[in-house]
């Protein structure tokens, strides 16, 4: 448990499928920063540290963004861990605040690549993708996770509708999130009738690429607004390149630290009231939940048909990226953290989970070759 460091504010920009003229990743990030600073009741001139993750910064770097935001800093990080960047940046910031080196710290994620820009990112994700995957016409991450999903279905006896329970459930949550790009309820029939993208993944298994940004303020607890308690972090862990891409991808890096993670948190999976699980694909939601020990007896099929279908455990209550949209994996991961903060502070409005006291958040990303190579998780708790 961090004694002094906590999350003291969150904010986001508008989310949109099609940015208007003049809207760029930088303007979305600016909007998120303004919202987060207001939420934290922190003046920009008091910010001492900043971390940013985005596919859209180049050729600029983090210091250029700091310059454009008018921030003079003593601590600066540019994180490149994709869908786990949010948890990664949160960990860096918490440890820095706890050590009393810098506080408050602003975390930023955002992108506005557009579909064509995202296609370029996907085909040039790393040198291995450029050399060994893109020439196959592999379909970007959709193709990669199609193979992982096929493997998962075979290993755990899953049916297509099992993934549908996640998509349908999250869409129901999204109805209560005014920032989600898709809020209209979806039926299982609609899910199953959607066109195939990369067998066995169909349209609603794949995150919609959108434009938008998220920001989070981490600081000392006494820097939090007096009107509400800061959100504390009981445990946080990360993993990078956990198996050299030679496993089956059905376990994530979370599997390397789950036992130690829960021990450090001092709580059990059953103590969790709300979960933000990085959802680039339903397949990976299930893999991460299983790694966390939140699926009894590793019986993923039964878990989908009961816990998820009946919404016994609130998972991705903002609609997840599958419904709210993915403004790059960086900001998508931050949205999960921000949602957990809102839930724990009783500020989630129509989607509020009653008496939410503890949340687990995860990140997963960087599709190096056959699946993602980075992961992180944290347990958040409503402050006293």
């Amino acid at each position, binding site marked *: 448990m961090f004694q002094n460091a906590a999350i003291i504010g969150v904010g986001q920009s508008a989310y949109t499928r099609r940015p208007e003229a003049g809207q760029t990743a930088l303007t979305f990030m600016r909007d998120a920063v303004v919202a987060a600073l207001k939420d934290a009741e922190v003046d920009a001139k008091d910010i001492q540290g900043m971390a940013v993750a985005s596919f859209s910064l180049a050729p600029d770097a983090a210091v250029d963004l700091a310059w454009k935001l008018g921030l003079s800093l003593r601590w600066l990080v540019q994180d490149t861990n994709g869908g786990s960047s949010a948890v990664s940046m949160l960990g860096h910031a918490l440890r820095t605040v706890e050590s009393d080196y810098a506080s408050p710290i602003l975390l930023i994620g955002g992108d506005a690549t557009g579909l064509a820009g995202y296609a370029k990112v996907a085909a040039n994700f790393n040198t291995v993708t450029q050399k060994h*995957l893109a020439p196959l016409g592999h379909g970007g991450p959709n193709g990669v996770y199609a193979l992982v999903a096929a493997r998962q279905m075979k290993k755990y006896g899953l049916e297509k509708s099992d993934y549908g329970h996640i998509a349908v459930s999250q869409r129901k949550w999204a109805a209560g999130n005014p920032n989600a790009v898709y809020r209209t309820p979806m039926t299982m029939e609609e899910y199953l009738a959607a066109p195939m993208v990369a067998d066995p993944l169909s349209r609603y298994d794949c995150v919609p690429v959108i434009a938008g940004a998220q920001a989070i303020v981490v600081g000392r607890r006494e820097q939090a607004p007096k009107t509400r308690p800061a959100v504390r972090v009981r445990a946080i862990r990360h993993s990078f390149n956990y198996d050299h891409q030679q496993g089956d991808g059905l376990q994530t890096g979370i599997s390397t630290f789950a036992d130690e993670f829960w021990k450090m948190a001092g709580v059990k999976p059953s103590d969790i009231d709300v979960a933000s699980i990085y959802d680039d694909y339903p397949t990976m939601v299930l893999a991460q939940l299983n790694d966390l020990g939140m699926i009894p007896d590793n019986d993923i099929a039964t878990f989908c048909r009961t816990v998820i279908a009946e919404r016994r455990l609130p998972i991705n209550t903002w609609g997840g990226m599958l419904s709210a949209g993915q403004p790059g994996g960086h900001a998508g991961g931050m949205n999960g953290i921000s949602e957990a903060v809102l839930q724990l502070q009783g500020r989630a409005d129509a989607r509020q989970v009653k008496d939410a006291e503890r949340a687990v958040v995860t990140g997963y990303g960087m599709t190096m070759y056959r699946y993602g190579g980075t992961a992180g998780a944290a347990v958040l708790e409503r402050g006293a």
Partner: protein
Amino acid sequence: MSEGVTIWRCMKCRTGVFPEPLLCPRCHSAQFATDRVMEGVVEEISVIRHMLGQGNWQPRRIASVRTSDGQLMTVGLRDESEPDARIELFQDGEAPFGRAKGT
């Protein structure tokens, strides 16, 4: 196109690695010799039916393959091979492909 797919064989522990490493993931030796794997078994397949940013996309098949030497790689399938099929591997540029043996 060339028969087989290039892998990198650690000179110290003989582990075959794909894609190309800098240090062996098993023993961390920096000495490698190239080798080739000629065949593998299809484990999973997918048909890529839609590609972001591509209007006239023709569906393509890809597969996760375990090579005869043990590496796991993603290949483009040039025929209708199904899971469990033993296929021959070939390389186009640096990209691995596969097709049913003897075709």
